[in-house]
């Protein structure tokens, strides 16, 4: 039990990721699949951010006269935050492209349910 609590951030990231993974595989609606993908990506972003956390009142690295600049214990590691800023941008652009694709699919098939789309595709190729 202590083992779980000591590393609870990692457990949360695994659970979130599996929720997203489940939605990507099981859900038939394309928008729900996309939401699953977003949860999957965000789980990884949380994982990175949680690795930068330090206990004991550490804060973001801003040069301030009240802070002791030589004491690294007062600063969080800024690099994971910066990396995740890039990953968020990547995630947003992927979502943007995916939503555009969803709109295209909806215009063509008038539905977003995967099974119904496959049925319509079969009708198309049967003709």
């Amino acid at each position, binding site marked *: 039990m202590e083992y779980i609590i000591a590393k609870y951030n990692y457990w949360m990231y695994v659970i979130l990721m599996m929720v997203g*993974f489940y939605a*990507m595989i099981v859900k038939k609606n*394309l928008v729900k*699949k*996309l939401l699953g*993908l977003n949860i*999957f*990506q965000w789980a*990884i972003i949380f*994982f*990175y951010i949680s*690795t930068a956390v330090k206990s004991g009142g550490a804060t973001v690295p801003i040069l301030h006269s009240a802070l002791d600049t030589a004491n690294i214990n007062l600063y969080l590691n800024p*690099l*994971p935050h910066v*990396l995740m800023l*890039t*990953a968020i941008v*990547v995630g947003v*652009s*992927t979502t943007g*492209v*995916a939503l*555009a*694709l*969803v709109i*295209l*699919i909806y215009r*063509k098939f008038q539905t977003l349910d995967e099974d119904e*789309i496959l049925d319509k*595709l079969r009708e*198309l190729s049967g003709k």
Partner: protein
Amino acid sequence: MIRHQLPAIIIVAPFIMAILTNLIGLWSRSACYYAALFTAGVSLFSSIGILDTVISTGKISYRLGGWEPPWGIEYLVDHLNAYMLVIVTLIAFLSILYSYRFAEKDMPARIPQFYSLMLLLLTGLIGMTITGDAFNLYVLIEITSIACYALIAKGDDKSPLASFNYLIIGTAGACLYLIGVGYLYILTGSLNMADLTNLLPKVYHTKALLAAFFFFIVGIAIKMAFFPLHGWLPNAYNHSPDSVSAFMAGTVTKVCAYVLIRVMFTIFQPQYSLSIVPILPLLGWLSVGAMLYGCILALAQRELKNIFSYLIIAEVGYIVVGISTATKIGFTGSVLHILNDAIMMACLFFTAGAIAYKTGAKTIDDVKGIHKKMPLTTAGFTVGAVSVVGVPPTCGFFSKWYLLLGTIHSGEYHYTAGLLLSSLLCAIVLYRVLQSMYSQNNEISTKNDEAPATMLFPIYVTVFAILIIGFISGNIISTVIDKTIPIGFR
């Protein structure tokens, strides 16, 4: 002076032009084509310059913004990168040249955006190849993929769904890669590949590193369509527009194969991938599966591009089987096959596109008797097909020969059997297509109606490349590929 800046120019030129084409499009749409072609030409010449520099002086380390590695992002170019850069930029240049008529026909209103995406795809591929930073690689993988998703969706009616499925699977793959990078960062505090090579041996025994290694392998395997994670590829390539399927077929999976080599033998030292984690037998068996599965399913297809897409899955298997023999000669075969496969697949997709452009023929039955109508295109296709099967003196023979020698040398005879059987199946697959193309058909008009010059030229560049690489493969191996073999290979 400009020579030192080539690693920056090669990637910055297409990136800036990708944005500028949208502005140029406001003034003149056809100018976008020439701008894109010029930029791809600049990248091609830069890559040749880089290869020349690497051969004569050795590794190039380019520091972006002058920041010292491991803090700044470093572009590290050795023989393998430089070789890959030439392949990517050559295929890109030919594809952009080839796309002229298609852009006019399929998307007259969207020409600037189309070339913008093509250049963005080129930027991503060059970046993946040249970068020496593990996180930077993730970002560039995603740039490549997003450009791919958008380009695929410009194809026929089924393309948006194919593209959406590719997006879901592909992004999940890139996310797995990102987790791997995260684990490495937590363990070592570094993201620079050369730095990681030196730091990682201290933590080789940890379970976290093992997990990271498998996240990397699975993530990249999804991106390179390695059996059994290939599900997205056939639909995505089959339904994509003819102008871009050759570009993607020739480069994307091959660059991902390069990333696999980079991760397994640069980020992790060869001893890790060879002896600490015995992953090579697993990869070997899966690639035997890929070779057979790809060829057998190619037999079942009727549409030309679908056949070639399944052949790509088999070809990825060829590339991986050479690595998994852990022999010098097998690895040589793999690296040579990356080049050959890029050119052969570009040739096949170019010819299939040209036939579809002129006659609308997409399936094996449609192309019956096409040799009377388009003799030059059909001849080009024949050379490409013969090379995929591996008939001497085409280039496909030489890489397959090295792969075969590698499997025999390592004593893994089941790989040898897989390779031979797959080549045989491949011959049957392509023989069916050729038989249909060269058969008599009275319905089709026998009037000579050849593809336009912008299509014939790229086709014939690939055809001559196929023939010439066969003869100079000895030189390529001694000057470039020999220097890329990881330490510890037998």
